[in-house]
C-alpha cells in the first residue's frame, strides 16, 4: 500500500494539465496510482491472495458466526492452500449481519473502531459497518486508484455531490480525492441551484455523484438558462446506483464530459471495490483486497467467465469487519483478459440486476416488502399491488419513476371522490415514510392486475435493456 505522501509516479501526470490530455487513453493508461499492486503478475497476485485469505480465516475465527462454522466443518487457516479452498468457506448475507447487529462481526476491540458507516436503514434494521484507522487508509487508497484511473490529477478540483453521512459515498470519495492530492468541494447532495453556483464560481473539473444526480444538475442548469455543456466539469465518477450504457451516453452528451463508473457497497467497504480506467472496458476489481466470485444465485456454483452471476465478495484485508463470501445480490459478469491500460486485475461489467428483488430507485434501496409494509398500514390495500419502475428516456428527464398500482377492494372503495383521493395520498405518504421514496400511486380496478399461481411477480422494471 502506498504511503499517504506518495505521489503517482508517472511523468505524464505532471505534464498533462491542459484541457484534453487528462483522459486520452495514452496518458490515462500511464496514470496508475499504485503500479506495483495494480500491474502485478497473475501468479504473484494469486500468491498474495492465498496468503491474505489464510490470515483472514485466522482473524475471523474470533467472530462467533464464523467460529461455529469452522468448528462444524473442522476448518482453519491450515486448510486454505489454494484459491479453490475459498469454496469451503461459509457465505455471509445481509440477514446474517442483521442478526448480529450491530457489532457481531467485529474482529477488533471497540476502542480500535475509527468510524462507523451504514446502510440507510430504510429496510427496517440498519446495518452498520465499522472501520479501523487502517481500513480508512485502505479505503482512501482504493478510491484513489479508480479516481486516478479515470483521470484525476492532483491539480484538479472535485465537486463531491454525494451525501455525506452514514452513506459511504461522500466520505469514501472525499478521502480518496484528498489522498490523490486534488482539491475537494464537499458540496454534498442536493440543492442543485447551489451546486451550479459553486460550479460556476470555483471551476471544478470533476464531478462526483450518482448518475441520476448528474442529469438533475444538467436539468437544473437548463432551467436557469445555463447550457450544461458549458459547465467547467470535464469528467465525472458516478456510482451509488446501477446505471446503463445509455445513461452514460446521455450524461456525457448533456454535460459534455466523460463519465466513469465505479462500484462498491457499504458492507464490503463502500466505493472502491472496482472502477473504470480510461479504456472503460469493465471495472477493475481491486483484487489484491477483494476476492470476487461470480456464482449462479440458485446453485451457488461458479458461472463460466463472462456469464452473468451474483458477485460474492471476500474482504481480504479489512480489519474491523472482514467478511467471508459476502453475497452482494448484485448481478454482473467477470472478465480476466488483459486490459490495454496495463492493470492486471480481474474486471467486472456494470451491475445488470439483482438476485433478490431489491430495486435501486434514484440511489435509494427499495424492497417490494417495504411497499407491502406501507400498504399494510393502509387497511384493505395489501392484497394486490404492482410496482412499476421506469426511467423515461427523453433527454433531460431521466430520473427513475416509481409507480405503485393498488387494486381497489370493497373495503377501500368509497363513492366519495375526496375519500378516494385521500386513500391514494395516504398510500403515497406511507411509502415515503417507510421507503424514503416518492411514488406515484395509482388506484386500479379490482382484478385488473395479473394473478399468479406461485410466487407473485410484484415488480416490473422497465429500466433495463441497454446492457
Amino acid at each position, binding site marked *: 500500500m502506498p504511503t499517504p505522501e506518495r505521489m503517482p509516479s508517472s511523468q505524464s501526470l505532471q505534464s498533462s494539465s491542459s484541457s484534453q490530455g487528462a483522459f486520452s487513453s495514452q496518458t490515462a493508461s500511464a496514470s496508475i496510482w499504485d503500479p506495483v499492486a495494480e500491474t502485478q503478475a497473475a501468479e504473484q497476485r494469486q500468491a498474495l491472495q492465498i496468503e491474505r485469505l489464510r490470515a483472514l480465516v485466522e482473524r475471523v475465527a474470533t467472530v462467533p458466526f464464523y467460529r461455529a462454522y469452522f468448528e462444524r466443518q473442522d476448518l482453519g487457516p491450515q486448510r486454505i492452500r489454494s484459491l479453490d479452498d475459498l469454496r469451503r468457506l461459509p457465505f455471509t448475507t445481509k440477514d446474517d449481519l442483521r442478526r448480529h447487529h450491530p457489532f457481531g462481526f467485529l474482529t477488533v476491540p471497540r476502542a480500535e473502531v475509527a468510524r462507523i458507516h451504514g446502510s440507510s436503514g430504510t429496510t427496517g434494521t440498519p446495518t452498520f459497518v465499522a472501520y479501523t484507522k487502517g481500513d480508512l487508509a485502505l479505503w482512501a487508497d482504493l478510491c484513489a486508484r479508480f479516481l486516478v484511473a479515470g483521470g484525476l490529477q492532483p491539480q484538479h478540483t472535485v465537486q463531491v455531490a454525494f451525501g455525506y453521512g452514514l452513506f459511504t459515498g461522500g466520505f469514501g470519495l472525499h478521502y480518496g480525492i484528498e489522498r490523490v492530492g486534488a482539491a475537494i468541494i464537499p458540496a454534498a447532495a442536493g440543492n442543485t441551484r447551489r451546486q451550479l453556483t459553486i460550479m460556476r464560481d470555483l471551476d471544478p473539473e470533476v464531478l462526483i455523484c450518482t448518475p441520476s444526480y448528474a442529469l438533475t444538475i444538467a436539468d437544473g442548469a437548463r432551467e436557469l438558462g445555463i447550457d450544461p455543456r458549458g459547465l467547467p466539469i470535464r469528467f465525472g465518477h458516478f456510482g451509488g446506483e446501477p446505471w446503463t450504457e445509455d445513461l452514460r451516453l446521455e450524461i456525457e452528451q448533456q454535460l459534455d464530459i466523460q463519465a466513469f463508473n465505479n462500484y462498491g457497497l457499504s458492507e464490503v467497504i463502500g466505493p472502491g471495490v472496482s472502477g473504470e480506467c480510461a479504456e472503460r472496458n469493465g471495472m477493475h476489481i481491486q483484487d489484491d483486497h477483494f476476492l470476487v466470485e461470480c456464482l449462479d444465485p440458485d446453485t451457488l456454483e461458479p458461472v463460466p467467465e463472462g456469464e452473468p452471476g451474483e458477485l460474492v465478495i471476500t474482504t481480504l484485508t479489512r480489519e474491523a469487519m472482514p467478511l467471508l463470501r459476502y453475497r452482494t445480490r448484485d448481478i454482473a459478469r467477470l472478465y480476466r483478459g488483459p486490459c490495454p491500460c496495463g492493470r492486471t486485475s480481474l474486471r467486472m461489467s456494470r451491475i445488470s440486476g439483482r438476485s433478490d428483488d431489491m430495486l435501486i430507485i434514484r440511489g435509494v434501496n427499495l424492497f417490494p416488502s417495504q411497499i407491502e409494509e406501507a400498504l399494510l398500514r393502509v387497511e384493505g390495500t395489501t392484497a394486490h399491488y404492482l410496482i412499476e419502475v421506469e426511467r423515461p428516456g427523453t433527454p433531460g428527464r431521466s430520473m427513475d419513476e416509481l409507480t405503485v398500482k393498488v387494486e*381497489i*377492494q*370493497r373495503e377501500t*372503495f*368509497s*363513492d*366519495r*371522490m375526496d375519500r*378516494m*383521493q385521500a386513500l391514494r395520498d395516504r398510500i403515497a405518504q406511507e411509502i415515503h415514510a417507510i421507503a424514503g421514496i416518492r411514488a406515484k400511486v*395509482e*388506484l*386500479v*380496478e*379490482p*382484478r*385488473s392486475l395479473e394473478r399468479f399461481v406461485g410466487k407473485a411477480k410484484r415488480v416490473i422494471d422497465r429500466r433495463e435493456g441497454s446492457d
Partner: protein
Amino acid sequence: MKLQQLSLFLENRPGRLDAPLEAIAAAGINILTLSLADTAQFGILRLIVRDWDKARQVLDDGGWVANLTEVVAVDVEDRPGGLAEVLKVLDQAGVNIEYMYAFSSYRPGKAILIFRFEDPDQAIKVLLDQGIRALDSDELIHADA
C-alpha cells in the same frame, strides 16, 4: 324518503364505462339516472336504478367493486333559481352536502336533484321543515314507468 344509489370504481381509460353499463343492460335493468365523477386517473360511476340489489349482484359477479349509498332525491321547479332555493335552505341549516347531481324530470316543469348527505335523515327533516319533500323510490319509479 331515501334512495339507494349504486357506486362503482372505474379506471379513467377509454372504454372502461362500457362494460358495466352493458352488464346492467343485459340484466334488463334500466338506469333512471347516473353521474360520473372523475380524475385524470380514476372515476366513480353513480347510478340510480330501480332494482339496485339485482344491479349490484350483476356488478359483483362481473368483478367490479360496487357499493350502495343512501341518497336523497328532491324535485324542484325547473326554472332559474330552483336549485339555489334548496341549497339556501340546506346551507342555513348547516347541512353538509357530500356531492349532488341533477337531471330533468319526467314531469313537465320539474327537475330532480340527487343529494348525498353526510346525515340524510337530518337533511330530510330540514327540507320537510321548509316544505320541501324528498321523493321516495316509488315516486321515481312510477314516474319512470
